[in-house]
Structures are given as C-alpha cells and as structure tokens.
C-alpha cells in the first residue's frame, strides 16, 4: 500500500520528493515557465499587476462537480478577475496528509491543470509538504496568483453608486449546499452540484459591453448576502433587492427549506456580484446569459442613497424587511 500513498519521505526533500514532483505535479503543470529552480523567472509585464493568495481546506476534498484542486485554481483566478486582471501566473503549495492516495493526488493535479488551462493561467512554481497522519485532513492547498489589470478596468468595493443595478451571474448558494450535503450529516439525498468555475472569461465578456462597471466581487464564503453587506458598507450606500428576482436552483431551495437556511448566505465558488449603471444592466445580463457559467444571470436589485449600510429585501408578499446581517457562524470548511 505504501507505494500507492503519500508518506513522510515524500516530504523530506530527498529522492522521493523529486519523484512525487516529477510524477504528479510536473506531469500536469509542465510549461516552459514551470521552475526546477528556487523561483520561477518571468518576463516583464506592461501595466499594473494584481496579486492575491488563498488557502483551501474544504472538507470533503472531493464533491459533486469538483474537487479541492479545481477550487484552488478557481478561487485565485476569480479574485484576480474581480479586479479586472487577466490571470497570468500562479504558484501552489500543498500540505498533504500522510497516507493520502497518490492516484487521488493525481486527480487533484489534473483538475488544477484543466481549470488553469481553461483561462490560460500558468502554474509556475509549487511546494509540497507532508504532514503526519491526523495533522491535516487529506490535502490542503494554497494558491497565489498574479494578473495584469486591463487598462479599462476600474473596479472596487467602494465604487457602487445610487442608481446602480445589482447583478448576480447565476443561481446562488449551490457550492455551499453541495458541500453541506457531501458531508453526509443531514441524511438528505440530492444531486445538487457545485457552481465552482473559473470566471476570467465571464469578466472579460462584460467589458465587451461596457467599461463602466463599478464593482465586481466573487461571492465565496458567506455567499451573496455577505457581499451585499460588504459593498453597502464600503460604498456607504443602501441596497434594495427583490426576493423573487434572486435565482435559486430548485434543489437548493428544497434543501434550504428543510434546514431553514437562507440561500443568500450559502457559499458560491463561481458567482459574481456586479454593480453597474442601470442603463447598462440589461445589456450586461444579455451578454452574461450567453456565457458558459452565467446562463441564468439576473438583475436582483438596485442601489439607493437611503438606508446606507443596509440591505433591504422586498419579500414574496410585497413587504420590505431587512436582510438579517451575516452571522459569521458558517458551515465549517466549505472552501
């Protein structure tokens, strides 16, 4: 069995470490820039750069529609994309639990390669550590990414303005719901799958419609609801959304109904929240609906000058209530 699983020697820096890197990582991440030296050497880039890093410890590491490898690329690609930056290079650091199956590690690396290739980002350096049994859970991955910011892009969470439309690029809460069910603690069966997706091309397509996009943010931990409160605070504006306009997958609705969860607070890993002038909103949504990962994009609300810092919901029965503030006690380890 030991030949088929990761052991402590794989992390000791010797021959077995080299073998692991050759067989698993280099086999998948090979590119002229992938370094065998201490650091990758990259060509100079014109213009402003965006750089970000993110750690991934999702449990379980494999779930319907993806795994931690895909997630670790999407997370960083999407953070760069939200700044209007085309993802160029990434590095990844693995912490692998002793005993983790090598073939599963290959599956994870393959998912990373496939996802990175889809948006044209290159993995140029990596690191592998092996933790003793029980010191971590399966595999943890940290990715860091660099991207070049498009000159026409000027987005920030502080730029939402009264009159802006609020757009989501797809149905909300599917990733959180998928992980929740994958943990098997509720005894609920459903084929709901993650929304996890790399969104650079989604962002790029919006700039074909207009450069006038004020805020782009990916709704990860805490979901769309948390993003709305963040933007309401950062931009010092109010947000009014309409319950009936928020796209929610029927399966997610069912699970949320049973467990008393608010889909707006379930994590997404492939959804953006966009604030743009109202007169551009219809065209943006039309463009988004042509995209692979944003077919059910929708306008869910508007920005108001009043109720600064608050998110007001127009309910199914036509009343207005406050969307309760995010509580921070989220489901453990969703990303």
């Amino acid at each position, binding site marked *: 069995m030991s030949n088929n699983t990761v052991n402590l020697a794989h992390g000791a820096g010797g021959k077995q470490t080299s073998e692991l890197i050759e067989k698993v990582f280099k086999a998948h991440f090979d590119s002229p820039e992938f370094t065998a030296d201490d650091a990758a050497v990259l060509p100079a880039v014109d213009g402003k750069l965006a750089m970000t890093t993110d750690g991934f410890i999702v449990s379980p590491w494999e779930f319907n529609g993806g795994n931690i490898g895909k997630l670790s690329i999407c997370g960083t690609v999407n953070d760069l994309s939200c700044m209007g930056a085309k993802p160029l290079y990434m590095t990844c650091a693995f912490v692998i639990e002793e005993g983790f199956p090598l073939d599963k590690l290959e599956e994870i690396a393959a998912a990373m390669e496939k996802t990175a290739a889809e948006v044209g980002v290159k993995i140029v350096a990596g690191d592998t550590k092996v933790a003793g049994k029980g010191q971590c859970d399966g595999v943890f991955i940290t990715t860091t990414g660099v991207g070049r910011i498009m000159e026409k892009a000027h987005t920030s969470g502080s730029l939402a303005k009264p009159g802006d439309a609020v757009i989501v690029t797809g149905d909300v809460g599917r990733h959180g719901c998928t992980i929740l069910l994958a943990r098997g603690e509720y005894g609920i069966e459903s084929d709901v799958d993650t929304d996890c997706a790399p969104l650079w091309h989604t962002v790029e397509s919006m700039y074909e419609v207009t450069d006038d996009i004020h805020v782009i943010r990916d709704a990860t931990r805490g979901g769309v609801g948390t993003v709305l409160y963040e933007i309401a605070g950062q931009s010092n504006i109010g947000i009014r959304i309409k319950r*009936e306009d928020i796209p929610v997958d029927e399966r997610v609705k069912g699970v949320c109904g049973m467990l*008393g969860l608010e889909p707006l607070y379930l994590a997404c890993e492939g959804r953006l929240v966009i604030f743009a002038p109202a007169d551009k909103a219809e065209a943006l949504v039309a463009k988004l609906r042509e995209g692979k990962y944003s077919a059910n994009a929708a306008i869910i609300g508007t920005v108001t000058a009043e109720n600064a810092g*608050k998110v007001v919901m127009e*309910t199914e*029965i036509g*009343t*207005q*209530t*406050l969307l*309760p503030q995010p509580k921070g006690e989220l489901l453990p380890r969703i990303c």
Partner: protein
Amino acid sequence: MNESIRKAREIITGYSGRPLRIMEVCGTHTHEIFRIGLRKLLPESVELISGPGCPVCVTAVGFIDEACWLALEKGCVVCTFGDLIRVPGTEMSLAGARSEGAEVRPVYSPLDAVELAKADPDRQYVFLAVGFETTTPSACLAAEQAKAAGLKNFSLLTANKTMPNAYNALVGSADAFLYPGHVNAITGNAACKKLCEEKGVSGVVAGFTASELITAMAVTINLLQKDEPFFRNCYTRVVKDEGNPQAIALMNRVMEPCDSEWRGLGNIPMSGMKLRAEYADYDARLKFNMPEIKGRPNPACRCGDVLQGKCKPSDCKVFGKVCTPLHPVGACMVSDEGACAAYYQYSE
C-alpha cells in the same frame, strides 16, 4: 406576487374589526413571519404574539445545569443540538462548561451520538433530548438502537415536550393559535379539534412558505370575525388528520408522558415525555444518580413573559443591550427561532 397572495393581503390589510390577538406557537413560524415581513401588513388592531414553540427557548434553566453536572462532575461527553450550547444555565452555559474542560459535542441527530458512543466504548456519552413531537421520535429511535446494540455507554437526558397540554396552559392568551405544521404532521389534528370542540379554542394549522403563512393568517382573521370557535388545516399538503402513526407508535414504545418544566410557563402536568421503565438503563438521571438540580433564571431576563405573550422582546430591559445573539442572557435570544433573536435580527 401570485393571485392567492394578493387576495390574502387584501383580507389582512382590509381588516377593521375588533382587536385580535393571534399566537404563532412555532419557532420556525416566528422566524419566517419576520423573514417575509408579515407583521408589517397587519392593521393595528391585530396583534401577533410569539408563543412557546421554540424547543431551545422553553428548555428550563435547570436542564442546562443538569447537563453541565453530567459533563463536569461525571466526565460524560455531552452530545447536543448546537443551539443548546450557548443557552445560559444558572451558573454557566455548556459553552462555559466546555471552557472548564467538559467535552461537548454538537450533533445533527441523536443517532450520531449513538455512533460516537459505539466508536468510543471507554467513555460515557449523553444525548440532550429536547424538542417537541417533531424531534422526539429520533431520540426514541436512538434509545431503541442503543438498547438493541446493548450499549453500556450511552444515555439520554430527557426534556422532551408535547404540545397539546401546553395549548391548555395557554388558553385565554390569544383569540386563535397558528398551529405548528411540523408538529401536527406527526400528531395529527385530533388534539386541536378537541380543544376547539371542548374549550372553544380556535386555531389554524399553518405551513411554512410565504404563501402558506399569509394564507393561514388571512383564514384566521376571516374566521375570527364569525365569533364561533373554529379549527382549519391550511397545511393539507403535509398534515393529515391521523398524523404519522409510525412515529407515534415509536414514541409510545420508548417514552411515556410526564410532568414537565417549561421556561416561563412553569410546570405543566403531563406535557413532557420521559423514558419508560424498560429503558431505565438509558436514562442519564437514573444511571448517574443525579441529585435534584433546581435552576435559577437570571431575574433581569423576561423570556418567560415573552413566551407567554405578556410582553414583547423589546419591552425587556436587557434586550439588545446586554442581551444579544452573541451574548445571550435568555434562551429566546439564542436560537434563530427564538422571538428575541428574530426581533433583534430584523429590527431596523
């Protein structure tokens, strides 16, 4: 907005008769009513009172003290629904006990606690069995499974409650009840019908979607104008007159009625469930020779009055000041289904 919601809205907003008091008994209803903003449609003459239907909220202070005693004095691993962990006891909550070294494990189902006990035979596991007819069957199933497996390290600390006798205790506090759909799905409607026929208590079984809730409210307001007692099932999608016979049979095999202490309402005769004598080995109070433990609620907290509809959460002096969801003084601020937590989260 569909036609039936529009119609229900008209009935509710158009009401101009005598003052009405309607009590939603169920904690999930309390939360959903706030979420959809139903209170905002009510004319001034209609008052909606949040009743004692959140299982965490009605759990007596003494029960938390008993759980802390088992965890700290007897070294038991206490398994519980997560909400209970932060409910204040006389001296401390289970979270407080945990910081003093007690092991407290949140579980989603009593059956998870049975599995934990099986996997760790050297330690004693106790499941805190709270809740109404909706959750009691799963606690009974856990006891049955533990007995069948001959487990020596698993027991239940019971504070299970049943609704019918609580309604009796609440007679007169409202003109009509919105009955908890989930409970009636198990128990059926006989007890509610009997209350209507024998004591003239009116009520409507309500579901949980926006459309179901607003419809139940409109039906209640409509029927109250006729001045004769009524019972209606507005949740026929799920609630059948006979309830769920398998779940009822399971409960009756494992448990039997007993008196029960409700936070705020005091002792209500025969409103609780305890393990039958055949399951004495699985009753934590007997197994660990527990002394009688009497809880003392924080005198500043008015959860008891809130649960009986005698005051609104905002009438309590500590509400929103020292008592918040992060630092609850009373049980009603802990659970999402508690009236105080709902008032707090949705207050503008």
